[in-house]
């Protein structure tokens, strides 16, 4: 005989008192501390979901994973050619730094975009899971973010490989390779991820109510990319025009990225403040919006 669980040979009841009360809510947030506690306790589920989603997608093709790097790499090259042509031909002095800037900019932007667009669809795509299991729903967008990070980090060595190669051909370039200011990079990447995660919470809710939100996002992110300091330097904006960097949730972070990775200097104070403000704002609004609506998901899926 095969039994599962504690089976018949262990008749002791593993009864731990655990009383839950389910009550109606009028767009109220649930008690946040128990919510985060439960979220934290079940983080393994989100991590595993991310890992298995990758596994399911790349089960058949080993080349599949390579595309995660090749895709943004090719895209960067195309943008680099476009930018070079628009500027009236190649320039020996700035060519490599333009390429490096576009590379790291696209890698970072793609990271944020993946968090946002996958996260936005995570609730509507999680149909069965949502209808059959009770768990903090924020675990689904969180899982998307984890997965996006898994796809993002290999692009960092790719970046350095390209820069290293570039340095061989243009030893004069000022792009830093080993520089103390890179210590800012983990914070910048984390800030970008958290801001994007906060935004993905908002879009995930919107996508439950309006199913074309995620489609709309694909168009908006294109425009968003052009509006971010990825294909152009933050210094190109002067005076009050600089506000365009700061009204963009990813703007200050991407400007800081440019300064650390290409100029080899620390991010400016206003960039750091802008980044901090957007992190807090995105998380606060995202968490409120998401947790106050999430119990509505099951009746609207």
């Amino acid at each position, binding site marked *: 005989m095969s039994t599962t669980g504690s089976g018949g040979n262990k008749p002791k009841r593993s009864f731990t008192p655990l*009383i*839950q009360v*389910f*009550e109606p809510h009028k767009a109220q947030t649930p008690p946040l501390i128990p919510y985060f506690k439960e979220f934290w306790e*079940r983080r393994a589920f989100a991590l595993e979901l991310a890992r298995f989603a990758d596994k399911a*997608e790349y089960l058949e093709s080993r080349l599949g994973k390579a595309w995660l790097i090749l895709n943004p790499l090719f895209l960067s090259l195309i943008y680099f050619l476009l930018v070079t042509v628009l500027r009236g031909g190649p320039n020996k002095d700035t060519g490599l730094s333009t390429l490096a800037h576009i590379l790291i900019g696209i890698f970072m932007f793609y990271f944020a975009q993946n968090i946002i667009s996958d996260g936005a669809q995570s609730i509507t795509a999680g149909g*069965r899971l949502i209808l059959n299991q*009770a768990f903090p729903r924020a675990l689904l967008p969180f899982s998307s973010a984890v997965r996006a990070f898994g796809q993002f980090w290999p692009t960092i060595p790719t970046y350095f490989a390209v820069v290293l190669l570039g340095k061989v051909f243009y030893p004069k370039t000022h792009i830093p390779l080993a520089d103390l200011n890179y210590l800012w990079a983990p914070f910048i990447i984390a800030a970008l991820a958290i801001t994007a995660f906060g935004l993905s919470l908002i879009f995930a809710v919107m996508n439950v109510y309006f199913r*074309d939100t995620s489609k709309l996002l694909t168009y908006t992110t294109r425009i968003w990319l052009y509006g971010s300091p990825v294909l152009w330097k933050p210094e190109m904006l002067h005076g009050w025009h600089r506000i365009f960097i700061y009204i963009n949730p990813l703007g200050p972070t991407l400007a800081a990225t440019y300064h650390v990775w290409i100029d080899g200097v620390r991010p400016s104070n206003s960039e750091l403040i802008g980044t901090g403000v957007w992190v807090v704002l995105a998380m606060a609004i995202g968490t409120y919006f998401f947790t106050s609506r999430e119990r509505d998901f*099951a009746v609207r899926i």
Partner: protein
Amino acid sequence: MTINNSGVIRLGTSTPSTTMMTAKGYKGDILLPDDLAVRIEDLTITYKINVDTKKTLKNAVMRASKGEKVRMRQVEAVKKMSLDIPHGSVVGIVGANGAGKSTLMRSIAGIMPPTSGRIIVNGKISTLLALGVGFNQSLSGRDNIILGGLAAGLTRDEIESKTDEIAAFADLPDGFIDMPVRTYSSGMYGRVAFAVSVSMTPDILLLDEALSAGDAAFKEKSFHRMRELVEEARTILIVSHALATISDLCDTAIWMHKGTILAHGEPGKIVEEYLKFLEVGTLPSNLEDM
């Protein structure tokens, strides 16, 4: 058979415990007898269905520009239900399609929020609801067991130590457990799902159409496992259209009809009345003047 003439129904024949326990509601503490597994108070659950168009931003903007309102249809799947389920009950739930059985199960599991009323649940819940767990079709059965266990709140160590046991219980032929789930027959799928949900050692087990897909041998095995759970004094709620399951396994039964409890009591009697209703198509005469 007891006919429901509203008021609170307590399932089974035991007398309510006089010791009270406290639960924390939004508006202060709630007192209830400590022998209850589930208390349902005046529960109503309404689905909101958008009738005419797809739920898109585009449509919403178009309608707003024309000054039209969204036509929403509301379906009351559960209506003003009150019910006390003591610990250790094995409750069968029968009722026609669309009676609200699955909705009730989802609300007890904490998946569907009450539209009004309240549910108090005392104990760890494991669910096997109508559609199965959120199984990922391209992953193997074994991977899905891990995912299912984690979704149900087990730790990674717990589920990993149980995976072999669960796989053995599901007992799929020829190493199918390591094949993608999309290659499974519906019975094989059902076996894995059932094995996962009974492995959780829940205090309260919710099964919705869980036993329908298995073959005779697996039915036997799952009956055996459920009896074990019953002996361990766990609370089990079973929704099934296989009425023999209800009368064999359960010690009390509920007949749901259009979102309300029409009758409750001894499973054999309830099933009998329900069968009569299915044949004749009219409700028992003593109910009609209600």
